[in-house]
């Protein structure tokens, strides 16, 4: 498979943008400038980036509690995201949602919600809208391995299969549902096999390999556009930080019970390092270009923080705005 340099550079930039954003929030969380719960996406960037690159702007994405990466990869504004996380009126949800409710309908990011599995059926509905209107849009539903414990996922799979809806179910399996190792909450089999009884095509994907995710996503989305959906992708990955906030050990709670060796093993498979290796190894970009990109994104994130922190807070008198349209 050959890719243009621009395409590969953009993938790299997106992954980096997500990572640097996530890491830039750690300090403000620790010093309590950021108060809302943030579920950081560090370590899982390849999934949102690969899928995002295979979608059109008018396609739909619905996300879960760990939504920063999905929002950025779909084209949401980093400034508005950070402003939302700081609880500002300039935030994408006007300070009413916080980190867990990121939305940018202008680029097809339809929203995110922390009720586990809560947005899967919504994504199915967006796919249903597309199939009724025959307007060729595809919906992507992002959820974690924990969502496989919720019944609505199976209802959604059945209905999507029954109606042949253009939806890609993307399970980001990071092996932990909050604190709980997957082996303690599921019988040991491949998550993707839950799609089998619904005759939904399903694939296991290395969720830390952005090009593999992109190829799987592209194939799935093309299938959906041909009216042969849905497709289920299980992307194997690992989060580098705790379930919520920075690594709990940093906060002194010691509630991150994942074994140290396991974390170290996965750090070696950092999706950004792997992709850098690919870019350098195939002589796509050299180190000095990578360094420049890092500098560029770093500046971008820093200026987004300045924007967010200097933008006004919502006003008390506007508390009741937006209850109804």
């Amino acid at each position, binding site marked *: 498979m050959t890719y243009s340099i621009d395409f590969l550079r953009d993938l790299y930039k997106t992954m980096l943008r997500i990572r640097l954003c996530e890491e830039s929030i750690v300090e403000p969380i620790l010093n309590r400038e950021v108060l809302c719960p943030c579920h950081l996406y560090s370590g899982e960037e390849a999934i949102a980036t690969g899928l995002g690159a295979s979608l059109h702007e008018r396609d739909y994405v619905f996300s879960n509690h760990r939504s920063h990466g999905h929002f950025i990869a779909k084209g949401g504004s980093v400034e508005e995201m950070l402003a939302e996380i700081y609880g500002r009126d300039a935030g994408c949800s006007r300070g009413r949602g916080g980190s867990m409710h990121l939305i940018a309908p202008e680029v097809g990011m339809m929203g995110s919600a922390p009720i586990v599995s809560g947005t899967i059926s919504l994504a199915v509905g967006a796919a249903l809208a597309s199939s*009724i209107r025959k307007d060729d849009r595809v919906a992507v539903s992002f959820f974690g391995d924990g969502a496989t414990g919720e*019944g609505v996922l199976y*209802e959604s799979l059945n209905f999507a299969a029954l109606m042949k809806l253009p939806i890609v179910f993307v399970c980001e399996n990071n092996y932990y549902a909050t604190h709980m190792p997957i082996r303690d909450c599921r019988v040991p089999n491949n998550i993707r096999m839950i799609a089998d009884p619904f005759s939904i095509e399903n694939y296991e994907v290395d969720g830390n390999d952005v090009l593999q995710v992109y190829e799987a996503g592209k194939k799935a989305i093309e299938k959906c556009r041909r009216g042969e959906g849905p497709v289920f992708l299980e992307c194997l990955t690992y989060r580098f930080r705790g379930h919520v906030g920075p690594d709990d050990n940093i906060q002194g709670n010691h509630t991150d019970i994942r074994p140290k060796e396991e974390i170290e093993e996965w750090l070696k498979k950092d999706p950004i390092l792997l992709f850098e290796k690919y870019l350098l190894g195939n002589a796509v970009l050299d180190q000095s270009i990578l360094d420049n990109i890092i500098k560029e994104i770093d500046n971008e994130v820093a200026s987004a923080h300045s924007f967010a922190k200097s933008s006004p807070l919502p006003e008390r008198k506007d508390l009741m705005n937006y209850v109804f*349209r």
Partner: protein
Amino acid sequence: MSSGRKLQYALAINEAFHQMMAADRSVFLMGQGTKSPWYVGKTAQGLLDRFGKDRVIDTPVSENAMTGAAVGAALAGMKPIVVHPRIDFMLYAFDPIINQAANWHYMNGGKLSVPMVIWGIINRGGEQAAQHSQALHAMFAHVPGLKVVMPATSYDAKGLMIAAIRDPNPVVYIDDRWLYACEDNVPADVYEVEIGKGVIRKEGRDVTLVAISYMAHLATKAVQELAAAGIDVELIDPRTAKPLDIELILRSVEKTGRLVVADGGWCSWGWASEVVAQVSERAFSSLKAPVVRVALPDCPAPASSVLEDAYYPSAKDIVKAVKKVLSFKC
């Protein structure tokens, strides 16, 4: 206006669907039994033939995902009506209704609203017992971001359905199967009954009687019986459970000084309680007597007909309640 035309309640809803689906291609109906007259009465009559299976979707028994799909379709620009032929089953859909639909516009700073109708049918009596009989409007009315309408007449059934479909917010439309055969005048043209606007069914001086949905029917009977006894009741049907037309009720209470609220839900923590609370906050000095609620006892719906008869309030219970507030002496 062909105002002389009589139409059954169920057919009034059906006419609203026909007119709205013809006028707006984004309107569609989904839920269990849309192909079956047994589930939804005559409300879906002729829709499948006219609009096709893309827009009249009979769904699997999956209330949670089906309601969620309607929410998602609404976010994507459609105007879905999702039907729950028995509102009891709608409890499976609390997450998409409350967590998602009701909150979406607020928690996303007004970026996207959820223009959908969540239609739940109260389907009680006939010894169907506790899980086939419940009136759950107070639960939905409790939630910010939801509107709840409860039409009692064919005219309102059509006009409120049209208003609910056109509303840019999620509207819970609750009707009572006991109303389906009722008939009254229904104009053939497209019209709205404004959500949040009640109506005075009969003017009167002595007592304000507020009754909604099927209770408004019983109240009409009670009012006739009371009139024969020389008691002049003002009967108000708010038609919308929430937002409540409190101004209409307050004006009436200021005139009569006495209030009875009749509600088909449970008495405690219920819709009637909210009406009473708002009146006591805003018209306390007008009240000449303690208010009385006519509602269900705090008990699940029974099966046996003898117990059903004891359970559901009748017109007689309303008559008794009105006489009670009138008999109060300071």
